């Protein structure tokens, strides 16, 4: 029997920990870590798996962290000042985070988004009052990046571009928050950190912090197995504009996950763990189980970037019951 990492907390302790804050921005970070206990059936008892629920951030995703850091640094450095508009290219979650933060701090926000991102994301961004500029869906997120560059060239003085793919503050946000949280929440027992690559910010920043604390902690990235994939938010590096903040040499391993395997894991997480998450969480969990099967002991921590409510209208849920035999909840894939 593995020793418990987190003791049960009393009601009084939990109540004392409840936050009272001045701004919704004070709620970014400090997300809960939940143990995955059912999908781990059959694994050695010395192997434990935890997922960090980034959907608990106020904007609903891990992207609140880098978005807030990049905007605050922009203000401090003078690059973002009153009268300027925040602009960036995004496939959704960063857009939601920027729209939320821009609204609170009083800056207009314009976002270049491929028109094939999920309807829910577009609606949330619009609900925060941000302006959406659509790019060609056939060109994907790289098309949005290029379209955003063109807009900036025309009116460089009008805009502040956080530039999540190239801004070191993206990595720094995770170095300063996600990394320490993971280390603290596992009381330093984390042995493997696993995260998907979108911009690379999460894996780079968290990985750097954890390596400094303990160089033996393995840092493992997850990416789609093909250029044409259905894992919203993740990037297939070999066929993409490689983000400037992404340094593959800092990784110990990279695991490719198929869209179908990730989708199947999304269904299992909802049915067996009660966690309704997005596709990128499914991809991460699939990779984690593959790693876990090769271990006798270890504490694997992964990141679930968001919850699944933003994807209910997407093809993810088309025909999902056919993929599993309902009743005993055994999956056919």
């Amino acid at each position, binding site marked *: 029997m593995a020793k418990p990492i987190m003791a049960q907390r009393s009601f009084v302790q939990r109540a004392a920990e409840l936050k009272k804050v001045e701004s919704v921005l004070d709620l970014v970070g400090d997300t809960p870590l939940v143990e995955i206990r059912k999908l781990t059936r059959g694994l050695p008892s010395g192997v434990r798996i935890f997922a960090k629920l980034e959907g608990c951030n106020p904007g609903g995703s891990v*992207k609140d962290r880098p978005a807030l850091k990049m905007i605050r640094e922009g203000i401090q450095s003078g690059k973002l000042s009153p009268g300027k508009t925040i602009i960036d290219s*995004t*496939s*959704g*979650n*960063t857009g939601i985070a920027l729209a939320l933060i821009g609204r609170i701090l009083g800056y207009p926000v314009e976002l270049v*988004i*491929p028109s*094939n*991102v*999920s309807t829910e994301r577009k609606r949330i961004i619009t609900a925060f009052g941000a302006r959406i500029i659509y790019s060609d*869906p*056939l*060109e*994907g*997120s*790289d*098309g*949005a990046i290029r379209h955003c560059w063109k807009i900036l060239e025309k009116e460089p003085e009008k805009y502040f571009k956080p530039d*999540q793919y190239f801004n070191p503050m993206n990595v720094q946000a995770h170095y300063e928050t996600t990394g320490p949280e993971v280390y603290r929440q596992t009381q330093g027992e984390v042995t493997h950190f696993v995260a998907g690559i*979108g*911009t690379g910010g999460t894996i780079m920043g968290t990985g750097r912090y954890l390596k400094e604390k303990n160089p033996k902690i393995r840092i493992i990235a997850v990416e*789609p197995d*093909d*250029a*044409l*994939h*259905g*894992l*919203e*938010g*993740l*990037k*297939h590096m070999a*066929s*993409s504009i490689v983000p400037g903040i992404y340094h593959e040499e800092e990784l110990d391993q990279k695991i490719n996950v198929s*869209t179908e395997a990730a*989708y199947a894991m999304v269904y299992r997480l909802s049915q067996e763990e009660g966690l309704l998450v997005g*596709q990128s969480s499914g991809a991460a969990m699939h990779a984690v189980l593959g790693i876990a099967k090769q271990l006798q002991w270890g504490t694997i921590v992964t990141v679930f970037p968001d919850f699944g409510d933003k994807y209910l209208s*997407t*093809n*993810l849920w*088309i*025909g999902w019951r056919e993929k599993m035999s309902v009743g005993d909840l055994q999956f056919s894939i």
Partner: protein
Amino acid sequence: MVRVRVPTPLRKFTQGADEVSAEGNTVRALMEDLERQFPGIKERICDETGKVRRFVNVYVNGDDIRFLQNLETSIGEGDNISIVPAIAGGR
């Protein structure tokens, strides 16, 4: 003969072309013709049972074939076909 718009991830099969010509009276026949011209492209669009993969959308004149007759959707001269990834990668 119809024009088919090809998304970036599939352009490695079309020698970089973002639009190609193809023949067929139905979407199914069109897929076969695309495979004949660009070997390997069909299995990226369709799964082993022949169905269009869930993360790919095929549009005929702007309408998703899932809401038409799927692979049996008729195609006529001059129709515009688009193969579009159902999602966008990259945050």
